[in-house]
């Protein structure tokens, strides 16, 4: 009985608190308004993408968000066009291999730079970091010349090679390995593991959130990559999804409704990946920022 009364009393207190909650002040209203507008700004392109994918060609340049005569014909057309699946598969293969490669090599380099003391370590790290300051546009020409000389033009390898290891990934992983106490590494060394085993068995499981974050960044980056795949590929069977989608239409006109349909479909895998792993992305970014 006493307990029941106590519970009732405490719940009443809670209700009272709720009832007497202070009204939002001007600052809060301004903050919410800015956030709301920001949210709208972020969502609009996606909304227009979906809206356009449901429109007929004659309605594409009409800016209304709700199509006058919604149709699924665009989806039918894109999904029945065999090239779409081919490009989807190309993107999937390239993004997956690049992701695995980055997870492996970036973490291996990051671990080495973090946990081993050797002459020139700092210079190597700075050299890697400095490449972050070079924009992709500047690198495209040397990559192209290199691909041409090695016969990599219009091949999967040609599309993938620039992104198999990244300075950003190396930096991210190095910062994460800083959080792994040296005692773990030394304990494993005393227990008889070799350096590769220590990295794989002890260090890697301890930086799983960073690996997940890196994997998502790399996968999304390669899934949406456009400029380099466009330059290095010639034949439609080597196109990635973004390059393939941009080829919809003819010389006279761009078939925006089909491009938007393909884009909407191609967004789904990344959306799923993001929804599953978003907490790792946030953690990865926060850690990289804190430790940087």
């Amino acid at each position, binding site marked *: 009985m006493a307990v029941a009364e106590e519970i009732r009393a405490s719940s009443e207190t809670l209700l009272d608190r709720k009832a007497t909650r202070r009204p939002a002040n001007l600052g809060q209203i301004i903050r919410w308004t800015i956030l709301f507008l920001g949210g709208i700004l972020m969502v609009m392109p996606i909304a227009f993408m979906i809206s356009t994918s449901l429109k007929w060609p004659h309605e594409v340049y009409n800016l209304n968000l709700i199509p006058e005569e919604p149709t699924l014909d665009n989806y039918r057309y894109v999904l029945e066009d065999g090239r779409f699946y081919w490009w989807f598969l190309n993107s999937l293969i390239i993004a997956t291999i690049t992701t695995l490669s980055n997870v492996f090599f970036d973490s291996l380099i990051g671990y080495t730079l973090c946990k081993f003391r050797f002459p020139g370590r700092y210079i190597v790290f700075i050299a890697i970091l400095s490449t972050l300051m070079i924009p992709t546009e500047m690198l495209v020409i040397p990559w192209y010349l290199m691909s041409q000389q090695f016969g990599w033009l219009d091949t999967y390898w040609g599309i993938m090679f620039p992104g198999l290891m990244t300075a950003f990934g190396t930096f991210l992983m190095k910062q994460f390995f800083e959080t792994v*106490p040296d*005692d*773990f590494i*030394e*304990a494993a060394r*005393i227990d008889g593991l070799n350096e590769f085993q220590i990295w794989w068995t002890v260090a890697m*499981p*301890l930086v799983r959130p960073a690996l997940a974050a890196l994997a998502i960044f790399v996968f999304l980056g390669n899934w949406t990559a456009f400029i380099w795949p466009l330059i290095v590929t010639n034949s439609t069977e080597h196109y990635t999804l973004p390059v393939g989608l941009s080829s919809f239409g003819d010389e006279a006109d761009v078939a925006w409704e089909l491009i938007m349909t393909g884009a909407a479909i191609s967004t789904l895998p990344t959306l799923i990946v993001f929804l599953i792993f978003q907490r790792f992305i946030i953690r990865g970014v926060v850690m990289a920022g804190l430790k940087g």
Partner: protein
Amino acid sequence: MADVSLMKLVKAYDRTEVLHGIDLNIEDGEFVVFVGPSGCGKSTTLRLIAGLEEVTSGEIRIGGRVVNNLEPKERDIAMVFQNYAIYPHMSVRKNIGFGLRTAKMPKSDKDKRIEEVAEILDMSALLDRKPSQLSGGQRQRVAIGRAMVRDPAVFLFDEPLSNLDAQLRTQMRLEIKKLHQRVGNTIIFVTHDQVEAMTMADRIVIMKDGYIQQVGTPAEVYHKPANTFVAQFIGAPSMNMLPGAVNGGSVRLDTGAEVALGHRLESGRRVVLGVRPEDLAPDIDGAALVEGQVMVREPLGHETLIYVGAGDAEIIAKADGRLPPELGETVSLTADPANIHVFDAASGEALT
């Protein structure tokens, strides 16, 4: 089991020498504690023995074998770290069994060994838990278990109790000592806590600035300190130091008091007399070593520490817990000459 010998061991980082030729023999099955203030080189010595640091010069022998160029895994040692170093992603069972990963033995034997160790450490019920579900003391036991499972010749402990609270530290101290009595392996234990050193060691190695100051049993280092550093480092509260000059068969303290010595030293020599707080007693026959007012009292229940102002010096003494002198009261304290330590004022070395 094995003995450990350090011969003229030197360690330098670039041009900075941190260990200056350490010589030490540790007997097979002995429990040796390295103690000293931060930066004295005790952990570095341990890491050199473990093979985690490279020796600059000198020799390390484990079981008669020179191990300078051997990898840690080839030295037949196991180490317990200050931060436990138990892997958070593995269960207690996997953590304890980690040391057996590279051991060439059947899985059933490995499992049996893990369970034996868990039983010794009273952890059988916790084998399937993750480290995050364990208390500090239990984590420390897992770390010890991981070292034990390999049955190494030498156990190395690097300040393993520093992260535990006072009560748990006392308990773990006792457990490690019992463990040593049970398994009998050679143990080298590093700590900065002189109480840990005194209570656990067969022999204590006191270090300062990369030099060994004294090696001896707890009783030896307490009752016969080799120099003023050891005298003040071992024992809490620290030994009182009273400077003075030799005057025939006695010492005239700078405070003016005259203290008779049991033996003769050259007259005029500057010395420092060391007296432990518990050796100071109220003076009843007019031969006070120290006379002054009680400045501070620290009641500890069974006894009270009193801080007596004697000239520029502050002397600590232990008084009866029930009837301590009042604050501001003038007290005269003396000590049995047999309990007075004499050190050379310049070198700090013991003269008796």
